[in-house]
């Protein structure tokens, strides 16, 4: 029980520290100090800084996906569900800009394993997009990669805002990210109508 809470404290500390000073500049000593644990305890739980960061990253992604899912599932009809899910994502990222940068931008600096985690995290959104296939007329004939494309488009729009330091304005991006989500399934005319 105590071991579990130490782990949680450490993961929270890792998110804070890496978000604040960047992955490259973060040391294990920074993490243990921020979490108030010993070096021995750290190494009993994780092999190195990267392993700890990856575990912390998973927690961040879990939280985001849960928040998206509960907003999405509260609505009926795919375009409305997509709108609610995307709004929840943008709000969550806008509330915690450092976390947003960590989750979508700085993760690339933490090496190939972290990059794979990032791509895997994006793919966890696939079920929310795939419902567009059932909704769209002829949706079954769309390329197998359609949800990956839509996710890439959404991630591109969001990353561009984050890189420009506009995390706080992310909620204003809702109609664009909704358009990007809907358009491969229902086309630009219907997507613009839904997103407007």
């Amino acid at each position, binding site marked *: 029980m105590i071991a579990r809470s130490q782990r949680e404290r450490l993961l929270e500390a890792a998110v804070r520290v890496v978000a604040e000073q960047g992955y490259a500049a973060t040391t294990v000593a920074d993490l243990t100090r921020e979490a108030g644990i010993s070096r021995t305890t750290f190494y009993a739980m994780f092999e190195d800084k990267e392993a700890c960061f990856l575990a912390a990253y998973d927690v961040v992604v879990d939280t985001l996906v849960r928040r998206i899912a509960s907003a999405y599932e509260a609505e009926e009809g795919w375009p409305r569900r997509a709108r609610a899910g995307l709004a929840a994502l943008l709000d969550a990222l806008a509330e915690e800009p450092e976390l947003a940068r960590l989750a979508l931008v700085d993760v690339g600096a933490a090496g190939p394993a972290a990059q794979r985690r990032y791509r895997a995290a994006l793919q966890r959104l696939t079920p929310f997009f795939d419902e567009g296939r059932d909704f769209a007329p002829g949706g079954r004939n769309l390329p197998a990669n*359609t949800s990956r494309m839509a996710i*890439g488009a959404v991630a591109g729009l969001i990353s561009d805002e984050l890189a420009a330091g506009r995390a706080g304005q992310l909620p204003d991006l809702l109609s664009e990210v909704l358009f990007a989500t809907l358009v*491969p399934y229902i086309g630009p005319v219907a997507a613009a109508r839904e997103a407007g």
Partner: protein
Amino acid sequence: MASQSRRELILAAMIRVVGSKGYKETSVADVIEEAGTSRTTFYKHFEDKHDCFLAAYDMLVEQVFAEVVANCDGEQSWLERVERGLATIVELFAVDPQLARTAVVEVAAAGADARQRHWNAVARFTAYLEDGRELANGRELPENISLMSAGAVSGLIFDELLAGRAAQLPALLPDLLFAMLVPYIGPRAAADEMRRVAAAG
């Protein structure tokens, strides 16, 4: 001239080494060994590894862009241009997986300024291919629609490269074409183009 070409040798070596070892693991020693130059020469041209990488990245983008323009100019329609442009990029990446990895994957590990360069390059390619607005027949499209295409296309390419499947990129061309076109012309027309290219390929 001699020093100019030595500089380019170093830049080309940087692209190859980063593409095979990864940015973090690459040292100045690796690069000068690959380039066959001295440390002194390296530091005459560049402040450090990062400085050299940024210059190498700029060179890489210019090379890829020049290839795309060379294959795209002329009397082509927008659709042909998008298709030729994407085909040029995936073929280039397929024959030179190290360049591809440096261009798309490793650049993310090289700091915020490098990532910005990558994104600027992607935006430049999509803007070049962007005349697609004409095809929307005066319909109102979102202002940043080319960013959507860019994100969709670069996400697919990123996943392939991260999985070490550079050689299989040309097989993805129909999907990439769909991703690029769909925000402009919708799924039915984009799927027609996709099938046409798949049948021709």
